[in-house]
């Protein structure tokens, strides 16, 4: 027996001596070389149909495909992202498409939360799409696969994997979960809060979020962080936490929890008659208000693309509402808007790439955009650096739950976004369109 083990160990040792790590980066081997400065594309060019040798491109169509966690354990209608992308394509196709071709969403894969990398691979090698969009998944395990393949990829940014690779794009630009950002200190200042409570889950992403909130109130001390706790994920009893917040004199509570946690907290606040507003990270969902609007009343949410309720909506939002209503089974919500925005950025990338477009040219075109705003829906993303670098200011729409609906409270007609400098020591704010 010992002899056999010795042979096994020797074989392993020999193998170990001969091995190293691969340094191959397949993204460098795929697609065309990035182009230099892209010329301006005229309206005439947009109808010019020239032969293009690229995956998913025929004489009459440009085919894309997406993946969503359609089967998920949460109450998330992520498949609405497909509807949003389809609505945008319907709009473009109704105007004749682009370069003599129709935009077609040919694959809607379901990663069931855990098969993301396989489904992304399937889009590339089986569906042979030109671009991957939309990606609306709870985990983005296929990020590396998409990055390695050098394929233009567009999705819903809730995972850190969206940051970094130059061919991954999303609907809101780079987000840094554990960085100091001014939105919450500014909101605390505006509503006159003096003592803040912070509740998060004892899991990594929630903990990162809590770290960001703490840094924010350290940098802009508009209110004192009087109570902070991390509860086990999925905790259903927050009675002690609320009791301690009452003792600490908390008059504004901010959370790094999912919608479940926000509802649980709101119920307990109501039960203990602690009438303080809650800032909710993940609660921009009208169906949630339909069910729990009474306990969530007075709470605040921040949306980075413009919320659907902004007064005097920008052109992009009007188009979205018009076209999403024509797609069977579609709802106007955060996810369908994300799909729409993914399609918008892809289309603009195609425009920038010109009639002889390729995957690499589309990526290069987008990465030269300094001011993408999707006709007013997005607060001006600069793709020259917003893959992995925080922008100098934070912009978003803050809404309050009033009578079971989200009401943008700081937006001005034509200027839905509240923008605050990330770098200034003072809270310098202005409203923008």
């Amino acid at each position, binding site marked *: *027996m010992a002899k056999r083990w010795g042979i096994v160990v020797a074989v392993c040792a020999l193998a170990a001596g001969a091995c190293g790590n691969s340094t191959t980066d*397949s993204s460098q081997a795929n697609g065309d070389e990035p182009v230099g400065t892209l010329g301006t594309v005229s309206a005439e060019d947009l109808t010019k149909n020239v032969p293009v040798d690229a995956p998913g491109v025929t004489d009459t169509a440009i085919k894309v495909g997406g993946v969503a966690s359609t089967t998920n354990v949460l109450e998330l209608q992520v498949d609405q992202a497909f509807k949003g992308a389809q609505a945008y394509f319907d709009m473009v196709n109704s105007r004749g498409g682009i370069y003599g071709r129709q935009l077609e969403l040919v694959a809607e894969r379901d990663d069931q939360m855990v098969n993301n990398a396989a489904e992304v691979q399937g889009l590339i090698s089986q569906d042979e799409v030109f671009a991957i969009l939309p990606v609306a998944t709870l985990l983005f395990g296929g990020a590396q696969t998409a990055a390695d393949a050098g394929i233009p990829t567009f999705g819903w940014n809730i995972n850190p*994997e969206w940051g970094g690779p130059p061919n991954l794009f999303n609907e809101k630009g780079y987000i840094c979960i554990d960085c100091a950002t001014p939105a919450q200190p500014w909101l605390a200042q505006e509503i006159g809060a003096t003592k803040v409570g912070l509740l998060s889950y004892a899991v990594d992403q929630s903990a990162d979020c809590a770290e960001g909130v703490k840094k924010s109130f350290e940098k802009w001390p508009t209110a004192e962080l009087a109570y902070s706790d991390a509860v086990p994920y999925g905790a259903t009893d927050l009675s002690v936490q609320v009791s301690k917040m009452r003792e600490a004199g908390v008059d504004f509570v901010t959370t790094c929890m999912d919608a479940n946690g926000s509802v649980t907290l709101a119920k307990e606040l109501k039960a203990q008659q602690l009438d303080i507003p809650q800032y909710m990270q993940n609660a921009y969902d009208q169906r949630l208000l339909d069910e729990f609007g009474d306990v969530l009343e007075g709470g605040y949410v921040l949306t980075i693309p413009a919320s659907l309720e902004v007064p005097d909506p920008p052109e992009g939002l009007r188009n979205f509402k018009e076209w999403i209503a024509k797609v069977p089974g579609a709802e106007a919500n955060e996810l369908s808007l994300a799909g729409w925005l993914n399609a918008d950025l892809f289309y603009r990338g195609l425009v920038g790439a010109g009639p002889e477009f390729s995957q690499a040219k589309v990526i290069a075109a987008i990465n030269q955009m300094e001011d993408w705003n999707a006709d007013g829906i997005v607060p001006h993303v600069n793709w020259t650096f917003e893959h992995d670098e925080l922008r100098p200011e934070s912009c978003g729409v803050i809404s309050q739950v009033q009578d079971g609906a989200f009401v943008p409270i700081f937006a001005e007609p034509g200027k839905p976004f509240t923008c605050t400098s990330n770098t200034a020591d003072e809270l310098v704010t202005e409203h923008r369109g």
Partner: protein
Amino acid sequence: MPDVVEYAIRGVPMGCVFALVAIGIVLTYKTSGVLNLAFGAQAYVSAALYYTLRDPDRFGWPMVPAVVVSVLIAAPALGWFLDRALYRHLRTAPPVAKLVVSLGLLVAIPQIVNLDFLLGSQAKLAPPGVASEDPIYVAGINTSANEIVTVVVAVLSVLGLGLLFRRTNLGLQMRAVVESPRMTQLAGVNADRVGSFAWMLSSLFAGLAGVLVAPLFAQLTDLDFFGLLIAALAAAVFARLVSIPMAFAGGIALGVGQALAAGVLPADNVLSTGFRSVLPFAVLFGLLLFWPGLRDHAGGGDPLAGVDPPPPSPGGFVRPRWMTVLNRSLAGAGLVVFVVATLAVFDEFWLRVITQGIILSLIFLSVTVVVGLAGQISLCQAAFAAVGAFATAQLVDKTGMSVLVAMVVGAAVAAALGALIALPALRLSGIYLALATLAFAVMFENVLVPLEAVSGPTRQLKVPRPLLAGIDFANNRAFLLLCTALLALVAGIVLLIRNGTTGRALTAMRSSELGVASLGLSTGRLKVIAFAVSAAIAGFGGGLMATFERQMGRQVYQANFTFFVGLVWVVLVITLGARTVPGAVTGGLSFVLFRQILEKVLGVSATLAGSVSFILFGLGALTYAKHPEGIVEAQTQRFVRLVSRRRAHPPDDAPTAVDPVAPAEARP
């Protein structure tokens, strides 16, 4: 009112929730001898049905008829069905066999309920409670009518069940049926009828718990019920799985303990937060190790058990020479076909799927060692695999080490952890060992995985593909061949172990620990070896998975190594054959290929394909009591017998498989 008292009182309602579930677990064990890990799944059935009936968009029923249907009709009906279809035939089966069957149900039942044509796959916003959730103030502390109902039901349950078991003939008969159904029948009691009633009662309890607990969650998902079950297991173990009053007390103590920990320990402190997260599982683990009476309790048995002789051991099955030749020929031909297909046929998608299946096959060999060879049920194999994956990623990231070397070191780290976990195994066996490993798996996921020191930063760590003797395995086809070679290597090691001295000792220990000890062998040492080798294999496979994914972190963990996925792994391997290498390989390939074939080849929707896969994997475990050797081995033996008969050479030296649950008169 002092703060501490207030916090303690605030913990009572949650404690009653734990108590309610713990009482249900104890009730099931007491009346059926089954440690029913599917109790949470049964509770979910009633909760989901109650939700559907009350949902204004579907039925919109009032509370009373919805409760009557979901708790008083559907829940007992489910219990009756489970008894008639399954557990009636398992009364004399070992506790571990019953545990495996309940694990299968745990996997299958929620998937069946969530089928679109039943209650729907999407999670549901929680239904309103059976009573108002508006605040009521008692001594200055808020509660609600719904919470009061939960407390009252828990108290009444303790009293009612106490009366049932102590004061009624039926209670006595239910306990007697668990001890010895044959003896009970000899006393003129219809054991089948009593057993059915016991299951209907325990299932009704599950339904009651489900409907009362559902409003606690903003959304209704089966995973929440499973999480609650795991926490409540601590209270049930505190009750030694037999005492209903102690289960009640344990539940209350757990709820109050959690509230006190939240109130008294410093908030916003990493240690405090970690301690509170782990409290129920640490309590469970500690009780399993140190609570007196657990091991003694497992020693009871049916005085008429000898009427049902055990099935023949797999070692007794002599494989004919022609079968060995056939196997090797088929394996050789299969390998050639596989290599050709790898190099020429598979597209990148199928390459990925098959590679994943090969890696899982390698990991599943760890189950072969610990469950198949040593006969120890381990439910933390996914945690061992994750340890190997995290260690590989961290070593490569921090030291620039060769990834293959890092995988071996990762396997060593996992082996050390496996040996550590084996120490409790020295004191435990059977269902208690299974529970201990489950508690460890849950602790690992909730406490260790979130730590940056374990799993790395929020962004995934990059893990390169290996470069071996000048061959760059960044190419997916080359990497699949490498994985296949490594699978063959590890399978060879497992076979070496199985056929060597250690393997024979492990096999003997599986049959009789007492017998092995009487030969002068240390069962403790054997268990430590089995766990360490098993963990090393899982850890090595985990490292391979990390380099396959080219990254490792919490997202890869969520996609591949969660403790629930680990439960499915064990169920699958045990079902297909934990004692043989083909069982593990078939399991690994089935786990990823079955769903993909349903979806991509047969055109079944992704949701349905996923559900059907898990349902079949789960229901497959129901065959365990009949075929403990696994479906693959059972079918192999059947094939050999069939061929032997046709060749008119009856295999006199091969014992005929005996159905351990069939009536004695029906056996050959």
